[in-house]
């Protein structure tokens, strides 16, 4: 009987010591402003997204996938659910006032995807920030100009 009481007491002490100080530390790391574990989600531009927030939170990948197949295979280029439109509204400016790329943890895709531990391949091929205001022709032609290698053949 004594042993049982001692065990319960020790368990209670252990739980309290793990629970309270640990939770506070994690909350501060997660989001210092709100004191929660949720990710920081940057606000997009404009009044509203193409669908309401709850729908987009769960289904944005389906919209993108659907649009991607229509565009690549059939050439349907409506802009409503395109990745380009996502970037144009949701891009986050970095310290140099230019939009950050996916390599920066404050990128709007990463803020949630890092939290949810879901890795995405989109930006291996697609640009992760809007084209406007970033690229110049000089930037495009840095390095050696492609396509000028000569191939010899005979007619």
């Amino acid at each position, binding site marked *: 009987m004594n042993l049982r009481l001692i065990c319960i007491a020790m368990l209670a002490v252990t739980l309290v010591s793990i629970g309270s100080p640990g939770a506070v530390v994690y909350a501060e790391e997660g989001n210092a402003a709100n004191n929660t574990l949720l990710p920081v989600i940057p606000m997009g531009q404009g009044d509203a997204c193409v669908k309401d927030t709850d729908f987009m939170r769960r289904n944005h990948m389906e919209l993108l996938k659907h649009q*991607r*197949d*229509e565009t*690549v*295979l*059939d*050439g*349907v*280029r*409506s*802009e409503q659910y395109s990745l*380009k439109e996502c*970037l144009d509204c949701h891009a986050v400016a970095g310290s140099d006032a230019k939009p950050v*790329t996916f390599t920066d943890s404050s990128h709007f895709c990463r803020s949630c995807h890092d939290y949810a531990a879901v890795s995405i391949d989109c930006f*291996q*091929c*697609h*640009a*992760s*920030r*809007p*084209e406007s205001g*970033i*690229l110049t*022709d000089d*930037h*495009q*032609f*840095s*390095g*050696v*100009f*492609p*396509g*000028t*290698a*000569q*191939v*010899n*053949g*005979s*007619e």
Partner: protein
Amino acid sequence: MSSKVEDKKMTGKPDFDPTRRSFLAAMATAAGVTLAPGVVLYGISKSSSANAAATSDVRWGMLIDLGRCDNGCDDCVSACAKENGLRGFGRPETDAQWIRKVDIKNPETGYSKSLPVMCQHCENPPCVDVCPTGASFKRADGIVLVNKHTCIGCRYCMMACPYKARSFVHETLEDQKPHAPRGKGTVESCTLCVHRIDSDRQPACVEACSDTGGGAMLFGDLNDPESEISKRVASYASQQIRADLGLNPGVRYRNL
């Protein structure tokens, strides 16, 4: 060489007859429409706006008049690189080339010519035949593309292409053009500026050639008998490169 003989040489057919397949497909479509009157299965109208799907009513093609193509000019190549965000890494063997100027020379006579060569957008593309994942595909309007979402980078298509038209991306890329996504581990080639075509514009190389080059390139619909390109290919002899392979490329050359 008389044009009749040349034409026969150009249209040398392979052993299989691709028109038979399309005939059967046409029969099947006709039957489908008859069985279900009032139900529109496919859009019949031409693809003319960004929201319309490409249709097989159109066959995009190009006619390049080498008589007007200057050996030293590479405006088409630089326009392509600028349009699609192609950058070199100082390795000409592996750097992406969607279009290149190829020097040819007849050793017998010494006659030499430099001609622009890009994906020839074959009617029977070998790259599509060999692709193990279906990533290499021909769009309804005849444009041959790579779906990079399904490309595994095996490069069979690069080996199959007799025109050496495809490139493999070896480097990690950033800040690609939004209309031309491209990334490490996938194969790519001339898209005939498909994003421009979908919004009723000409490919970048054709535009550059008429603006600053010799005006040698003509782009248009080979299926439309009223189009400029159809009239020209009907009025004088033009050649396809390696016509003997029976691939029926959409890109044709004059004065080769």
